[in-house]
């Protein structure tokens, strides 16, 4: 798969949106039924979420069915690499902060994030990471005084 160029596929926006709403309605609705319902006068914790899920499901169905006859549109879905690296960046930071420490976490997170930019030179990526490490340390650790170790447990001897 070409990871740099955008993926374009035909999508019927209304039907997909309707399906997403129905899926959420089913998810929330099913979980709601596990909670006590109560009555209209004495609503339990499950009453209101179930009511909302019902309305959402109905809206989702109407949106999806109304879109049935509309033609699908060609749309840029995503550059897969961009999507993955941007979404994974905060997660990576959360995972490596404790063991590696603040500075290495910022550098690695920045390197991962810049993978999303196509045709960015490695030199620019590394410079961005170093610049951000300096800037973030200055702002968050020195100026705002957030108590995070600059180097983590794995890197201290």
């Amino acid at each position, binding site marked *: 798969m070409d990871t740099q160029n955008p993926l374009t596929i035909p999508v019927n926006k209304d039907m997909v*949106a309707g399906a997403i709403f129905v899926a959420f309605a089913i998810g929330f609705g099913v979980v709601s039924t596990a909670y006590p319902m109560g009555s209209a006068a004495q609503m339990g914790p499950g009453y209101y979420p179930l009511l909302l899920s019902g309305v959402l499901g109905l809206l989702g169905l109407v949106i999806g069915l109304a879109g049935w006859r509309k033609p699908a549109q060609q749309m840029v879905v995503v550059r897969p690499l961009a999507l993955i690296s941007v979404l994974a960046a905060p997660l990576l930071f959360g995972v490596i902060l404790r063991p590696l420490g603040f500075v290495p976490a910022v550098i690695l997170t920045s390197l991962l994030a810049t993978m999303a930019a196509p045709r960015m030179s490695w030199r620019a990526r590394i410079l961005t990471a170093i610049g951000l490490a300096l800037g973030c340390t200055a702002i968050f650790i020195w100026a705002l005084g957030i108590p995070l170790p600059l180097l983590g447990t794995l890197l201290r001897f």
Partner: protein
Amino acid sequence: MELFDNVLLGLQTAMTLQNLFYCLLGCLLGTLIGVLPGVGPTTTIALLLPITFGLDPSTSLIMLAGIYYGAQYGGSTTAILVNLPGEASSAVTAIDGYKMAQQGKAGSALAIAAIGSFVAGTIATVVVVVFSPPLSELALRFGPPEYFSLIVLGLVLSVTLANGSVLKALAMIILGLLFGLVGADIYTGIPRFTFGEPSLMDGINFVAFATGLYGVSEILSNLDQDPSRKSKVSKPKGLLPTWPEMKRSIGPILRGTGLGSVMGVLPGGGATLSSFAAYTLEKKLSRHPEQFGEGAIEGVAGPESANNAGAQTSFIPMLTLGIPGNGVMAIMIGALMIQGIQPGPSVMTTNPALFWGLIASMWIGNLMLLMLNLPLVGIWVKLLSTPYNFMFPAIILFSTIGIFSTNMNGLDLGLVAMFGLLGYVLIKLDCEPAPFLMGFILGPLLEENLRRAMMFSRGNPATFVASPLSAGLLAVAAIALILMVLPAVRNQRKKVFTE
């Protein structure tokens, strides 16, 4: 006079050295982030929210308000200089502002925008001072049914904010309401939708939600295009408008202020609709409507004044009723709750210093912006030339660190990624995030009032139409909904949004 005592109290609060400093810092940071292409006021506030948590409540609100005006101001600078408006409210400014910049009149456009915003801000602050106390007194007499109906009205009107299908916007509201329910049930304490995760007992972390929905999903949308393109920035030469330009702008500034002040109070109104309305009004009144779109200074002065006035008066429902009229105010409500203050009509009596201090700081913030931003315009121009490749990793890291440092909880970072993905997918499918955010904020309040009202009426839903006020609010909501679905209005709305 009670009013003067209040204003005095406000000035005393706002003029402490600490609050002045944070107001200034807020204005500067707000402009700094807001000026970045593609970053609107809502995103800016969501990104900078964690910085304000360490401050005491009044200071943090004053700083957030400063960030808001700063971001709006920064947004207009970007709209005028590079034609890349961050949010719909400055899209209108870009039409004639960018044309002026291409003709070498960027300085005049920027100066008129600044002056117009300041005049509008000053007048709108007076409007806030005069109208807030009676409104919150009225709201104090609201029972659960009235509150329920008011929230319903607010949510329905927030649909007008969304561009596109009314049904999709309604579905987004309901989805937001559902996500707002995550956490312990208010009456029984039973955890709902937490999947056994203790940190979800207090609900989904609001900052993670807002950052994912606005910040991350916006980055993803921007990356769909090739971001290595460099935007062409037109450099302003002189910074002073000529006398005839000033004279042409007085009328539009005052009319824009009036229009914006009224529309800002309406739920779902705020800055965006005000600037659209002001542009249309000026074009209609002008003797040379053909100049609009070709660099008419009225097309900058009117909308810019209107959106600033609207931004200011949209604080009225937020402060007096606890009901946000737009995405930015929803974030303000979230910030108040994080500070341990229950938003609503009682804020004015229980926290008078915060209430009046915030209002006084609005005017001070506007003054600071006027004095600071024109001299600093060189810096903003430099910032605008930064390629997106360097900007987006910085935005990701700042928000990641900011969110993590508020709770030191890795789960929040997972929520950022999750809502970033959800927001991105939904935007792709023409479902806008603003109603989602509104629903998320108002979900718990709506449920509380619904359940309480139904308890008092012993399960009879007629309670919502029994009081004339509640019935009236619901009637307005119903009419608004019907009007929006009617084909004639739908086409008009489409026209306004595509113009």
